[in-house]
């Protein structure tokens, strides 16, 4: 079992596809992850399952990998519980979650926007460029910059979970460049394709951060680090007050124009 615990999860799933199903039963979505270099032991720590669920999941994996053998499941030293009743509790991480909520309000309206997008019209091009401006100025410069320049620096940059998030950021930036180029060419099909790609990527990226990465980080950060993050986030936001105001205006405009979000794409 120790060998499995220290093995890369994607390789394990490739050899035993049912392991992916076993992980998914416990809300661990490694099958859909683009990178998958995390070790099983790190996944256990990051997802912070209850001791009972962790034992059940490891037993399921052992039954799949070693179907005819009796395997001893290692008991991990339990992590200290945060007695908060909440997944994420600290002010700086709650701030990032609140920014995610703003980004999700835009993502929720992209499908409706795309149904009416026509880059042969001035209005259509303006709307596409306004969306690109929101993504670049708010999602990337205002939000992702705080993650990359401040939050992630508190952790080992070689951690696979951090690499996965940085990889998502880069893929998002590539989509944005492609949208911008499509607008210049008035290529509606390409713009729709990359806006859809960006929406899908970011929805999944935000889910991973809200449900897995941030709760794990919240458990790891010391009180001193929480205080420093709080101050550094405030200092990073201060010169970008105008960006935030414009972003809120853009979200309001989009919501007025395209109405309520579709079911399942909550605010």
């Amino acid at each position, binding site marked *: 079992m120790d060998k499995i615990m220290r093995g890369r999860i994607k390789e394990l799933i490739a050899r035993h596809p049912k392991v992916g199903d076993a992980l998914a039963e416990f809300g661990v979505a490694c099958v859909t992850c683009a990178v998958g270099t995390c070790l099983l032991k790190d996944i256990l720590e990051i997802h912070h399952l209850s001791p009972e669920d962790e034992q059940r999941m490891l037993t399921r994996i052992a039954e799949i990998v070693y179907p005819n053998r009796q395997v001893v499941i290692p008991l991990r030293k339990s992590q200290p519980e945060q007695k908060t009743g909440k997944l994420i509790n600290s002010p700086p991480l709650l701030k990032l979650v609140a920014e995610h909520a703003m980004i999700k309000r835009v993502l929720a309206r992209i499908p409706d926007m795309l149904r009416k997008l026509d880059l042969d019209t001035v209005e259509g091009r303006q709307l596409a460029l306004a969306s690109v401006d929101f993504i670049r100025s708010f999602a990337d410069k205002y939000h992702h910059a705080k993650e990359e320049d401040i939050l992630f620096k508190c952790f080992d940059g070689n951690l696979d979970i951090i690499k996965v998030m940085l990889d998502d950021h880069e893929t998002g930036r590539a989509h944005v460049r492609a949208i911008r180029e499509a607008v210049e060419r008035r290529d509606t099909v390409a713009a729709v394709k990359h806006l859809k790609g960006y929406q899908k990527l970011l929805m999944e990226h935000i889910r991973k951060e809200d449900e897995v990465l941030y709760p794990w980080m919240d458990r790891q950060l010391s009180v*001193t680090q*929480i205080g420093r993050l709080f101050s550094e986030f405030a200092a990073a936001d201060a010169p970008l007050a105008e960006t935030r105001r414009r972003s809120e205006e853009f979200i309001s405009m989009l919501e007025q124009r395209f109405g309520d979000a579709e079911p399942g794409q909550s605010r």
Partner: protein
Amino acid sequence: MKEHAHNCPGSMMMDRRKDSDAAEAGTGKVRSQLQQWPIQLHLIGPTAPYYQGADVLLVADCVAYALGGFHPEYLKGKSIAIACPKLDEGQDVYVEKIKAWIDDAKINTLTVMIMEVPCCMGLSAIAERALAAASRKVPVKRIVVGLDGEIRKEEWL
């Protein structure tokens, strides 16, 4: 554990001798983590050097007696002040001193440690009043300690 009826949970008599006898006691000398004097909130100067940019504990008087690992687990590396929201007088001064921690000493964080008895929430309320009055904002954490020395709740406000 024997409990005796009384109107106020804060001063209700409890006899926990059997529980504390049964609990495993630490052995050997535990090194003090106190790095300053004075510590009573009326006596401290809020801009003293050890408060500048510090992670500060504001602790109800009873906490350090209830919490077995107070020094190594909570006090280590922190600056401190203690107070009793039930018995202390002149608590408006407390609000001003905590505000001065935030605005003048520019503390990094404030952690309020209180007992689970209702009157102890008053210390948390004093900290929240000071935070609301301050021009700077800092993360404030509240830790509630049970009469048995276990942590009941730990949350950022």
